[in-house]
């Protein structure tokens, strides 16, 4: 595969309610930060890929509302109506086409502007399932209940995921929730959808993330430490929850298989130095360990107990604090990519994994891991 570089990333602080910034200003903040970090202007950007969601932005073709903020007037600009990691893939393809030398990828979400339960309810079909009141909370409860029941995974094991990620977030200045919590705090929090409680779920956040992709020949013009795409695959599982295997993330598993094959990885835990997974709820991270081949099926809870995914473990997972700490929904996948980039560039500050050379990021669209993409990145 030809090489695609990421040469710089920028993020806002993720917060509950950025009431002083409409989302165009939120986007402008990260675009300007990216320009300043790299010492570039809008003229250096060949084309722009954005990611957001019409329901969250309150209008159709919502990318038009941020056209000025991303500097795409009279430029090639396109948008993914979905998770930001898929926007990264679109951007990488534009570099691979050799039509563009530089591509800026931007994703944003202001969860504070609309009820996320309403937005998530509209994911379900309007004839039968939407009226049941299904949303990301109730469907997560169904999945967690089936998974934990089948494999004997405990609520304590799930709670440990939240404790780990919230602790990691203390070292990430961009993270939304920065307060250490205990397993007891999670177990004693309000029941939302059995067996998942309030703290098994992420907060809702406002925030944006941007990055610059370049061709191999241009990468060194922007940075001495470019990060390279090594492998990619995506897989979409069935839309109806009733058509899915709810105890295993089959779509993520197939995406991981393809990405590992492209990157030449046969032993993910042995070869990867760090992973940023889309932890939509506590048990979802445990299920992701299994789907990504970090452990066997049903062993996610035991793998959590082993400490392997802690900061000093054999495969640290979510050093950023994950979605469980910052959740501007549409941007989550691109934030995972941004954290892996920072880790591989050696710019992750207090949460730096020493000598990280190979990392994994995954993005997700829809409910309970329907759409999945897995990305493998390598540093210099």
């Amino acid at each position: 595969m030809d090489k695609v570089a990421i040469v710089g990333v920028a993020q806002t602080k993720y917060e509950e309610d950025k009431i002083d910034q409409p989302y165009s200003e939120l986007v402008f903040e990260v675009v300007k930060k990216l320009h300043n970090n790299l010492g570039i202007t809008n003229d250096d950007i060949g084309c722009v890929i954005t990611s957001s969601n019409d329901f969250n932005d309150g209008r159709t073709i919502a990318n038009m509302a941020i056209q000025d903020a991303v500097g795409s007037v009279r430029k090639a600009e396109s948008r993914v109506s979905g998770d930001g990691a898929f926007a990264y893939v679109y951007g990488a393809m534009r570099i691979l086409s050799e039509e563009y030398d530089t591509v800026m990828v931007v994703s944003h979400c202001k969860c504070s502007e609309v009820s996320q339960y309403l937005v998530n309810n509209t994911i379900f079909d309007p004839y039968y399932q939407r009226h049941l009141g299904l949303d990301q909370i109730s469907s997560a409860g169904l999945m967690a209940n089936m998974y934990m029941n089948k494999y004997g995974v405990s609520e304590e094991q799930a709670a440990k995921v939240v404790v780990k990620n919230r602790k990691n977030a203390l070292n990430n200045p961009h993270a939304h929730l920065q307060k250490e919590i205990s397993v007891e705090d999670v177990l004693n929090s309000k029941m939302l959808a059995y067996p998942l409680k309030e703290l098994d779920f992420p907060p809702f956040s406002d925030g944006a993330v941007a990055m610059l992709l370049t061709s191999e020949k241009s990468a060194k013009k922007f940075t001495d430490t470019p990060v390279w795409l090594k492998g990619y695959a995506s897989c979409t599982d069935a839309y109806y929850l009733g058509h899915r295997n709810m105890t295993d993330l089959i779509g993520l598993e197939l995406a991981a298989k393809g990405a590992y094959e492209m990157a030449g990885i046969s032993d993910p835990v042995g070869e990867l130095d760090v992973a940023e997974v889309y932890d939509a709820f506590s048990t979802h991270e445990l299920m992701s360990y299994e789907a990504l081949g970090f452990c066997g099926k049903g062993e996610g809870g035991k793998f959590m107990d082993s400490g392997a995914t802690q900061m000093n473990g054999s495969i640290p997972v979510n050093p950023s604090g994950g979605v469980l700490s910052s959740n501007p929904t549409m941007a989550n996948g691109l934030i995972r990519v941004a954290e892996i980039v920072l880790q591989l560039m050696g710019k992750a500050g207090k949460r730096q994994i020493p000598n990280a050379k190979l990392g994994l990021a995954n993005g997700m669209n829809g409910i309970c891991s329907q759409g999945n993409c897995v990305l493998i990145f390598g540093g210099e």
Partner: protein
Amino acid sequence: MPKNDVAVVGIGQTKFRSKRRDVNIPEMIYEAAKMAMDDAHLEPKDIDAILIGNF
């Protein structure tokens, strides 16, 4: 110039009308998709990736 040549090997389009009361959205999409696959003598199992544009 693009690096690799890309071929279009089949196309399908429905008749465009103001109202299609005889089909729902998935059925209408299937109509076009089936025509494209038949045009290329392909079946769903032959297809690796799918892109959907809608509004």
